[in-house]
């Protein structure tokens, strides 16, 4: 009981601080705008003397209030016996504390505003209008009262939702009904056949692929650019996935190989600084090979190191390449700080691939190729050797695995993928410069692999979509984009620490029909 109360007060406090913070950075107003976009109620009639803008803000605060109440009532010792009590104690208390804190702030800010103190001198987002909105157009005292009543009520409601209604009998009953329906359906022979068949999977893949391939036609240039970027990050992620996820070598200078691919493409096909103007199709394999070769050359001395040391050396290497590319001494060769312009684009059967849509398809093809290669490698003798090396390097050597060769191989193949990504990137952007290849690229790719799920192809794709696609989707949020993005990442890592789609072991379908096997030591072992 006491513990429950303390938890609820804490929850109220935490959510109070969150709400106050959101208000101070002006997010309450932005959220209201977002909701009015969502509901399209900008010009709706006022309701209870509240204009739509204020209503929207209250809806936003209400959601936070619900969450606070749900969170505050969650930690109850008695699991199900008294949902009403839990909601009352937890939700109401959390709501009350939450409301008190927020209304206190509203009162303070409102009073100061009335006295003529210009708060926005200190807190740039708190314009008089924003304060007026926060007080729902009333006097400070009234506004504060609205907040305390409203947040306490929503807290109570949140508590009810999570404890009372959420675990109520209707949910159990409907869940059971739903399950029995599902079971009935899956008992049908046709469903069984479809589910058991390998073809089903191919059909699903086919439909997905078709959708993906139709997407660029409808997406428009901006989204095509974004899709292309996501695709390139999928390439990079899959490459680094081999190095980090499979072979367990932490490479923080992965951008170096990306840069080598990009610069090879740039220098061989651009009119400046070398006037070579080679074809894209010749430059592309050269870029890939050069990147792989650099991987070998860097790897040979460096891969004898393990773990952190390797990370630091590769980190340095990534920076060396970038700094070299913008150094004055090499400007005649690399184009220096201003980069290389007018990089060539591919033509295939006389058709130039210079529109955004065409290039997206080219990147898709590259991604498909890399997925194919990765998949084949992963499920082979080589892939198993990599994983064994990640698990226990010493023992893997005793299995007959030449760890240095295998590491070099992983490093070179990873580098080749990055080279491919870099070459495509440079050609698509028609320009590349030193700042395209900074440390952030390496960090982003590592994040793609970790957030998505290490050692797993769908995971890497999901990671690239999330890390490179989501920020563009969130562009609606303008200045808060980065903040929301960061918050999402934290939530993701709390929820799914092994990545969005953690790698599942492939079932080898070991025979199980040989009867019960005597394992006399089972269960009795230490």
């Amino acid at each position, binding site marked *: 009981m006491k513990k429950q109360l303390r938890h609820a007060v804490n929850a109220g406090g935490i959510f109070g601080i969150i709400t106050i913070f959101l208000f101070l950075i002006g997010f309450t107003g932005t959220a209201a705008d977002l909701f009015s976009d969502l509901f399209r109620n900008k010009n709706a009639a006022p309701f209870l003397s509240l204009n739509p803008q204020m209503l929207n803000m209250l809806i936003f605060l209400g959601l936070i209030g619900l969450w606070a109440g749900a969170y505050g009532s969650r930690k109850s010792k008695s699991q199900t016996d008294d949902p009403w009590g839990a909601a009352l104690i937890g939700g109401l208390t959390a709501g009350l504390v939450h409301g008190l804190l927020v209304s206190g702030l509203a009162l303070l800010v409102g009073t100061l505003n009335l006295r003529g103190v210009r708060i926005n001198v200190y807190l740039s987002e708190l314009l008089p209008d924003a304060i007026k909105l926060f007080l729902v157009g009333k006097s400070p005292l009234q506004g504060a009262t609205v907040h305390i009543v409203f947040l306490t009520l929503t807290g109570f409601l949140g508590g009810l939702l999570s404890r009372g209604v959420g675990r109520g009998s209707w949910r159990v009953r409907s869940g059971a009904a739903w399950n029995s329906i599902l079971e009935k359906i899956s008992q049908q022979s046709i469903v069984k056949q479809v589910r058991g068949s390998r073809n089903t999977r191919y059909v699903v893949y086919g439909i997905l692929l078709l959708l993906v391939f139709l997407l660029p036609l409808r997406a428009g240039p901006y989204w095509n650019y974004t899709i292309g970027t996501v695709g390139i990050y999928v390439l990079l992620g899959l490459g680094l996935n081999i190095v980090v996820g499979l072979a367990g070598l932490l490479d923080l200078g992965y951008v170096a190989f990306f840069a080598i691919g990009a610069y090879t493409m740039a220098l061989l096909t651009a009119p400046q600084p070398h006037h070579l103007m080679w074809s894209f199709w010749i430059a592309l394999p050269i870029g890939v090979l050069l990147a792989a070769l650099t991987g070998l050359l860097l790897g040979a001395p460096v891969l004898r190191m393990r773990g952190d040391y390797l990370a630091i050396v590769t980190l340095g290497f990534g920076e060396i390449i970038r700094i070299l590319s913008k150094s004055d001494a090499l400007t005649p060769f690399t184009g220096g700080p201003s980069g290389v312009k007018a990089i060539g684009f591919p033509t295939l059967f006389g058709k130039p691939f210079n529109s955004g849509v065409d290039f997206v398809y080219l990147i898709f093809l590259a991604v498909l190729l890399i997925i194919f290669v990765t998949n084949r490698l992963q499920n082979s003798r080589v892939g198993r050797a990599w994983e*064994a090396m990640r698990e226990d390097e010493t023992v893997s050597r005793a299995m*007959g*695995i030449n760890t240095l060769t295998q590491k070099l191989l992983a490093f070179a193949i990873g580098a080749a993928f990055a080279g491919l990504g870099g070459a495509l990137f440079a050609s698509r952007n028609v320009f590349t410069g030193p700042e395209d290849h900074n440390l952030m690229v390496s960090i982003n790719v590592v994040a793609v692999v970790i957030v998505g799920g290490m050692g797993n192809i769908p995971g890497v794709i999901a990671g690239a979509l999330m890390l490179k696609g989501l920020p563009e989707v969130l562009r609606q949020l303008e200045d808060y984009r980065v903040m929301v993005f960061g918050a999402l990442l934290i939530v993701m890592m709390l929820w799914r620490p092994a990545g969005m789609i953690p790698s599942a072991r492939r079932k*080898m379908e070991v025979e199980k029909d*040989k009867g019960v*096997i*005597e394992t006399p*030591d089972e269960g009795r*072992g230490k």
Partner: protein
Amino acid sequence: MTIALETRALTKQFGGLTAVDSVDLVIQENAIFSVIGPNGAGKTTFYNCITGFYEPDAGEALFYGKSLVGLTPDQVTYRGISRTYQNIRLFANMSAIENILVGEHACLRASWLEAIIRTPRVIKEEKDALEKARQLLNFVGLNSLGDQLARNLPYGAQRRLEIARALASQPRLLLLDEPTAGMNPHETTDMMHFIRRLRDELSITILLIEHDMRVVMGISEQIAVLDYGAKIAEGTPAEIQRNPRVIEAYLGSGAASGLNDAAKQPA
């Protein structure tokens, strides 16, 4: 009789400490040979010198007449020597069958390029490898646990899986490092039968480090005793039990004379 493994004055030093002190051993093909000794006697170091983890400072290790000195661990495996570890070292996040497939690495040929193209030869090789892995799982009695992650297996099963993985490289000599450590008497008996079966059915020479005297005396044909890195005795189980130097090494000086009678009975 063919000699499987022979060491001549094999020596390994760490700084001033001589961990293995000019050890001479001759292990006949198809034997079960035990190396015993108190903790810190240099048994595991001796293993590490043979398997290429350590390079011996002096002396020679010959496997079917060919020197092992200077080879890396993977090259030693290709020669036909395989080992298990005192503290089980499986690839914990890989499934049981994948552990065995990794063990088969030395027997497979597929290069990375072939793996990508998946030539008919590679397809057949992979199919055979999987089949062999299943047979090995069956052989060690784990056939229902193939898809389990190694770290989720019960302790005894992990020991067996480690042996199966070692067998996957088709060794001619198997080095077992305390295979019954942490097992109860029942499991220990099972393991003893299992080791004998390995030798009889697969005709593999077995070198065994073991602390459990019941196991050592029960299955070894020949025993060598190490103390402070040096070999202090060698002989059949009966000879070792009577050897006063062995008793002294295990129980301290002075005990040898008093405990001579007691030592005649198996521990």
